[in-house]
């Protein structure tokens, strides 16, 4: 379970890119990625392009790599770009996976929990996720939680209240896993909320050390210059870090 980093977003197959895009890409680095640094590039970010790369995301993201390391036969990857921890939990229940359709399997649920600031609601019978500054609903949510004097700020957003929300969803998933006799491992996408998570939740199923490599000069090769997410090599490293924690 997770967001775009679980979906495998970043494992681009550049043979699917147009010549124009390839030319433009040359100017970009993971620090200054093609998507994100220039709004005009958004025209290249089409459903067609994503669709052509879906299989790459699926086979080269951390879930596929971790499954190989663990010797796992089957993977169900619920990773969805831009989703929130609440939205991911809602999606899990919407699919009735809590009822354990995998009784004949030895199941391990691995959750790369996304940043806690995202929220979700059902709108039009669909689970809609709202990222930072993405929507008027999120902006009102932000106004609501910002209204107290807090020392727990990250980029001007309070961390502790959103982390309490995420702990609630973590506890839900932990309950499901205990009930279904599944193994459960949750990892934070960033270190930002780990310390607050640990302050309020002591479960051994949450591994507070971030498995994502730092985006610094030493690790640039692990990141995509297309979108700034990890690339194939980066996700391999995430899988190794996760495996090392799970094994121990």
């Amino acid at each position, binding site marked *: 379970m997770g967001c775009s980093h679980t979906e495998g977003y970043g494992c681009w197959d550049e043979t699917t890119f147009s010549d124009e895009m390839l030319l433009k890409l040359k100017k970009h680095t993971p620090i200054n990625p093609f998507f994100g640094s220039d709004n005009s590039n958004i025209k290249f970010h089409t459903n067609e392009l994503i669709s052509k790369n879906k299989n790459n995301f699926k086979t080269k993201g951390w879930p596929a790599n971790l499954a190989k390391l663990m010797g796992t036969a089957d993977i169900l990857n619920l990773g969805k770009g831009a989703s929130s921890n609440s939205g991911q939990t809602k999606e899990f*229940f919407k699919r009735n996976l*809590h009822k354990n359709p995998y009784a004949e399997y030895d199941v391990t649920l691995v959750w790369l929990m996304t940043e806690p600031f995202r929220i979700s609601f*059902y709108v039009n019978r669909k689970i809609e996720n709202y990222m930072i500054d993405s929507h*008027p*609903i999120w902006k*009102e*949510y932000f106004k609501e939680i910002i209204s107290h004097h807090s020392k727990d700020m990250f980029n001007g957003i309070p961390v*502790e*209240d959103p982390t309490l929300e995420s702990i609630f969803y973590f*506890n839900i998933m932990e309950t499901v896993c205990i009930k279904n006799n599944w193994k459960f491992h949750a990892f934070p996408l960033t270190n930002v909320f780990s310390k607050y998570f640990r302050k309020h939740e002591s479960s051994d199923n949450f591994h507070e050390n971030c498995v994502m490599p730092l985006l610094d000069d030493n690790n640039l090769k692990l990141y995509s210059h297309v979108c700034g997410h990890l690339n194939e090599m980066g996700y391999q490293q995430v899988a190794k870090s996760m495996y090392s924690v799970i094994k121990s």
Partner: protein
Amino acid sequence: MKKKLLITMGCSYTEGVGCYDVDKMSKSVHYGFLPREEEIIQRKNFHKLGWPNRLGKKLGYDKVINLGLGGSSTSGQVKQFFEKHVDRDLSEWDVLIVWLLSEPSRISFYKNGCIENFCPSDSNTMYVEYLKWINQTNYDPDVDLLLENIFHIKIIEQLCESRGYSLLLTPAYEPELFIKIQSLHKSKYYLNKTPKSLLHSLMKSGNYKCNIPKGDGHLTPDGYEIFASDLYNEIKLNHPHLVSTPKNKIIWQWDGAPIDRYGKFPMILNQIHTDIFK
């Protein structure tokens, strides 16, 4: 044989709002507007004389823990349950949860380290924005609200199945809305086999409204007694295995206050009363 524990979840109707002791009130206003000392007295009265203790006695349970909190949302109630009870070992108890589902339009978020519930009547800008979006759709906006509720209902169902607790669900709102929930979510935990709202029927009769402040539709102690009897009769009819010999007295506890991490809420909300109900 294990002792029997009844846990009740819900909003003001479960907290027991309406059971005012009028002799101890300086003015006939909503409890939230009473002087602090009077509010404490009235809320203790609510907690003692509401339906949960009455139902616990009728069902023959040893103890009642009432998590009901006025103004709370379905999601807020589930968050509260997880905060306070998910790590609690109740393996020595035979547990039944009766959840009087609150109107589905309420939502909750953590704010100031505490669960905060938002109701349509609050005119909160976040809430107004949310309603604006769901009302712009081509679908019945109730369905979006109900899907949020169903998600939270499924969570408690999971928790109960995980722990071996019994669970009964019944609405505090009109049966038409409950029919919609039942069409969207099949569950073996509904109190009635056919969609029915016992509380709504009683409120509609208009006979047991507390009328404090004037026009308030919460029930009087007599109203809650009838509601508890109605619940008992339905449980006896549809879930007879959950019924034991009635008790003369039970231990009860109100534990409806959310965890107050930064001490921002009045003391009354932080108190857990434990008492005997005869």
